[in-house]
């Protein structure tokens, strides 16, 4: 009988751990949606902040976020996809170079964001004299999302059946044409999944952005203007006690964005796995 009881206790404990984790997540998301919902309206999204964020909306920080994310993706996606194609189609699997590139990608993925921030600050902002700007911030973010993009693109290219390429080569197409016309289109859903996932990372990143893009509340007009992202805005509003209501509104929008990203990533992942 004692064994039976022990089994029950263990079983209960394992279930409890699953329930606790679900509860933690639910409490955080529901609390922020509940408290932030009422601060978000048309004006909050479309008007500029005033008095250091105490009044007005957050339009400039939304634009700043989009701008930074777009620059990061424009730089990281071509590089990441090129890396994936090189590793999977040109380099020999066992070559030293391929090993080195894979290793640095893993290492890059483990570097804390604050170190990316320090590097971006001393390299892009000071050494290359780009100042606190959308470009400095975007390039720093690009380095941060590069491992995710490369790895998902690598998986996507790897999952394209070898016959596709062989058939195309047999029909007389060159290697590069075959890659462009046959491999890339089949790998596209996987590549898109990687892009969606890294958008989430770029939108949420704060420490690296604050050190490289600055925290100006003005509307960023060009690549050389400083900008403040929504996450940096949330940090400043909350820690300087400027406006709790606006901080909740900003957190609400970030959470909604992350939920959408998560949903889209799952959708695209599922369509990808169905296809292959």
């Amino acid at each position: 009988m004692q064994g039976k009881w022990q089994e029950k206790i263990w079983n209960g404990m394992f279930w409890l751990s699953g329930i606790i984790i679900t509860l933690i997540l639910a409490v955080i998301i529901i609390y922020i949606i509940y408290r932030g919902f009422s601060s978000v309206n048309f004006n909050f999204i479309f008007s500029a902040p005033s008095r250091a964020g105490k009044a007005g909306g957050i339009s400039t920080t939304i634009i700043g976020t989009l701008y930074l994310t777009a620059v990061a993706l424009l730089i990281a996606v071509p590089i990441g996809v090129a890396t994936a194609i090189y590793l999977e189609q040109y380099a020999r699997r066992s070559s030293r170079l391929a090993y080195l590139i894979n290793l640095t990608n893993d290492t890059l993925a483990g570097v804390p964001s604050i170190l990316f921030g320090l590097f971006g600050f001393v390299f892009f902002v000071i050494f290359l004299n780009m100042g606190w700007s959308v470009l400095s911030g975007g390039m720093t973010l690009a380095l941060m999302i590069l491992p995710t993009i490369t790895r998902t693109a690598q998986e996507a290219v790897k999952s394209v059946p070898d016959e596709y390429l062989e058939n195309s080569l047999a029909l007389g197409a060159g290697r590069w044409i075959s890659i462009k016309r046959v491999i890339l289109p089949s790998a596209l859903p996987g590549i898109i999944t990687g892009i969606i996932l890294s958008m989430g990372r770029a939108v949420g990143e704060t420490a690296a952005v604050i050190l490289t893009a600055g925290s100006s509340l003005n509307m960023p007009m060009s690549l050389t203007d400083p900008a403040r992202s929504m996450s940096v805005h949330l940090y400043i509003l909350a820690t300087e006690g400027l406006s709790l209501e606006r901080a909740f509104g900003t957190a609400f929008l970030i959470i909604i964005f992350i939920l959408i990203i998560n949903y889209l990533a799952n959708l695209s992942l599922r369509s990808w796995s169905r296809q292959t």
Partner: protein
Amino acid sequence: MELILLLGASVSVIAILLITLFIFVKGMPLIAKVGIGSFIFNLDWSPTRNSFGIGTMLLGTCSLTLVSLIWSVPLGVSAAVFMAEIASKRVGDFLGRMIELLAGIPSVVYGFFGLIVIVPFIREQLGGNGLSLLAGAIVLGIMVLPTIINISRDAIIAVPLDYKTGSLALGATHYQTIGRVILPAARSGIITAVVLGMGRAVGETMAVVMVTGNSTIIPDSLLSPMRTMTSSIVLEMGYAAGDHQAALFATGVVLFVFIVILNLGVNIAIKAGARNAG
């Protein structure tokens, strides 16, 4: 074409080299000037008086990481066992989605939640001003859960089915099998999960800076405020200049070395795992 692709592929290699180079070049001269022992162990951080010692921050980072892992490792490993061994496929998939979401929430949102909910709760229920080691450990523990759960779950799933069926055939119950066969076999994977979680905790910045109070003192209780190395960098970088700025880069160098050591630890754990399996 191959050359252009190779050029793209070498970006990550160049990036890692440049990151290392620039952080070390900016930080090392100050460490040399102050002396490495004094930089690491001196407990006085007063940039205005040119006294640069990161002893309190180093202790802060270590104690915060330790306290957050104390509760998140048991919870995370137990959740991993639940997902891999006990839950039905539907419940397991559901929990997997939840953990994905938990990993996707930006650290600044965790910090905000901690500041608005956990800090006032600690202040009212336990005393102190709420901004504390405990608040940091609660928030940070939640943030490392996805890393710990995902990697330990993969390790548990990778345990050969023969081990399990063999143990069950010998008359052991499912729970005896989990405790005596599956967990020991997945040991190196679970250690990897803990070390990676540790790396995540050591490097985390925004959530920690928002809830720990950031005083440069040695935390003497769970309710005491404290500061980590990462917090110091993000708090002071905006206005630091000269030696002060160099000292923040030197803090980055120490952080960098920490992360490299943890990565080596992971590699050793993975190799040990491969040897065990073979």
